[in-house]
């Protein structure tokens, strides 16, 4: 008898420990282990090597068959993509420090290019908010879009912390548009400002460059940890914040809404029980003449109908 009890006790303890362990793992799961993305394809964009030639933009247009973003200057049209749009999947921005600020420190104003495009997050917010999984992370790394699933709710556009997804506003059959990671830009870059490889190696390479030339870079690999990590890694000579790259915590974006969704079953059960209890308590022993207090309301009632007549 005793041993049986003991066995039961042990089994119960094991079960409890097991579930505790499982829930512990669950909590950890929100802190995504970046190692699982080590072999996804990543790209380093080194702003200090970039010469702003926009060959990458032209290559992107050609590969994806996107029309130029025409702007007219004194009668001549140029392709001047200013910001990301349905047709601009990548743009080259430029930042120049306020000369007065630099003069105060007795140096030339710093400046930098920035090639913007989809960051291809390890755990993308766009994919986590999409109700139909039209946006999804592939095993190789790219975050892709399937227009045959999309309903056009545009939640992805609002949830992306980098504000990357853009829309075809003037189309009766609109699509969400963004970089699809075909890396035409990487192949086209004439100065090696863009290099691609497995994410782990790219991160190591980025840190090697910073270590080798600490004066050339700000000591931060943007995208290594931001929002749970991205496949697009940015090295720059000026602070990333100044380049309009949002400072983001290393937590995965969906960790904000995941707990809400995971709490739902509990809510359904709890509210169901509460309603059931209330119903039982108020309807269990219903009196046949349970008519409240007819005196007061009937007086009001007849009065009201007279008033309005």
């Amino acid at each position: 008898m005793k041993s049986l009890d003991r066995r039961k006790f042990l089994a119960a303890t094991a079960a409890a420990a097991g579930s505790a362990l499982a829930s512990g793992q669950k909590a950890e799961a929100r802190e995504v282990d970046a190692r699982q993305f080590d072999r996804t394809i990543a790209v380093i964009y080194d702003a200090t090597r970039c010469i702003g030639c926009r060959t990458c933009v032209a290559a992107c247009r050609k590969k994806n068959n996107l029309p130029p973003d025409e702007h007219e200057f004194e009668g001549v049209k140029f392709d001047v993509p200013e910001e990301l749009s349905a047709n601009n999947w990548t743009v080259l921005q430029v930042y120049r420090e306020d000369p007065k600020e630099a003069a105060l420190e007795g140096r030339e104003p710093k400046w930098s290019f920035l090639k913007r495009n989809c960051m291809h997050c390890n755990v993308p917010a766009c994919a986590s908010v999409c109700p139909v999984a039209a946006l999804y992370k592939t095993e190789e790394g790219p975050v892709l879009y399937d227009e045959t699933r999309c309903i056009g709710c545009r939640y992805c556009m609002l949830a992306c912390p980098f504000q990357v997804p853009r829309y075809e506003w003037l189309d009766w059959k609109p699509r969400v548009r963004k970089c699809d990671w075909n890396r035409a830009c990487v192949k086209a870059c004439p100065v090696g400002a863009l290099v691609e490889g497995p994410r782990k190696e790219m991160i190591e390479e980025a840190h090697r460059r910073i270590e080798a030339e600490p004066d050339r870079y700000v000591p931060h690999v943007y995208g290594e940890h931001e929002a749970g990590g991205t496949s697009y890694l940015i090295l720059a000579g000026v602070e990333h914040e100044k380049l309009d790259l949002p400072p983001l915590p290393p937590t995965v974006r969906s960790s904000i809404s995941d707990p809400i969704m995971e709490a739902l079953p509990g809510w359904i059960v709890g509210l169901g029980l509460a309603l059931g209890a209330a119903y039982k308590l108020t309807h269990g022993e219903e009196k046949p003449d349970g008519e409240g207090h007819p005196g007061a309301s009937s007086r009001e009632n007849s009065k009201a109908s007279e008033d309005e007549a």
Partner: protein
Amino acid sequence: MNGKRPKVPVIRLAFSVLVVVGFALAIYRLIWGLGAATNLTDAFPWGLWIGFDVLCGVALAAGGFVLAGTVHVFGLKKFEPFVRPAIVTAFLGYVLAIIGIMLDIGRPWAIWHPLVMWQPRSVMFEVAWCVVLYTTVLFLEFLPIVFERFGWEKPLQLMKRLMIIFIFAGIILSTMHQSSLGSLFVMMGHRLHPIWYTPLLPLLFLISAVAVGIAMVIFEAMLSGLIFGHRHPAQLLGDLSKGLPPILGVYIGLKLMDLSARGVWPLLFTNTLEAWAFWIEFLLGAVLPGTLLLRADVRNNRMKLFGCSIMVVMGVVLNRLNVALIGMLATSPTGYLPSWMEILVSAGIVAGGLLVLSVMNQTLPIVEHGPSARRLQQRAAPHA
């Protein structure tokens, strides 16, 4: 009540014109795209149709589950006369919200996708399912009215026996849906102004929806009373309004807790659009009506009660517009003001809803029906 009848056809005509105009503009939007009809941009992807038609439409439809729960679950049977109008309004509100969604989403023909292409981590997925399921439940709760109108006794009895299941399902789905509309915005910390951005959004949306559900029922009973003649004793409406101060009290308390916990008080005392919008929403929409309704003379005076119900309704409408539109302005380089087409489409949808409601009020046994109509007559009898 006869003296006021001639007004009705004129209003109906005006509403019909709005519906026709809205319909034409909706066709225009479907052919030429969202960008042609709306002022939406990549930097401001959700506008009036989400902020007003969907968020406000669903919130104002909360009376359905609140009244059904009050009467049929919590057993406050004296409010039974309000259940049917509330359910009809809720059903219409949801149908209108669905029309709004259909026009707002880029690919309305794919609206059924979330039902088969699952992504259960998405709040929008929950929203989609709740809309579908709760509209179905509301339709089932609405059916007995039609059965009663045509005197179909057998289906009526069957529905009555099943009704409590629909009511339970309706309440659970409603709480999920009302809160999930708030949950949508917890992923937008980088866009939404800190006055409104809080992880408590789902809870705040739910509680304010319960308040506005009650306010809407009172507002409607008063409005239809003004137009068609009063059918409810002022005391009964006053008693219903007793629910508002405690609910608004909890709401106000949560708001204060949230603002303190996140340390955003300094932002509320700046001369900004957001601060003003917040104070109007908070003071006029929640604090003032919540306080006034503590007084019996306010509750039992038709016009004062009407005024308070309007304040609560406007407060919640402004809250939803603050979260969806005004709170999003600061982070958007393009800004946003709804286009005249967006406004007219929204107006057309509302007008269509009111039109259908007024026709149903006259043709279906909504306000006075079966047992409760008889009871009202019995109560009135001794004094008549």
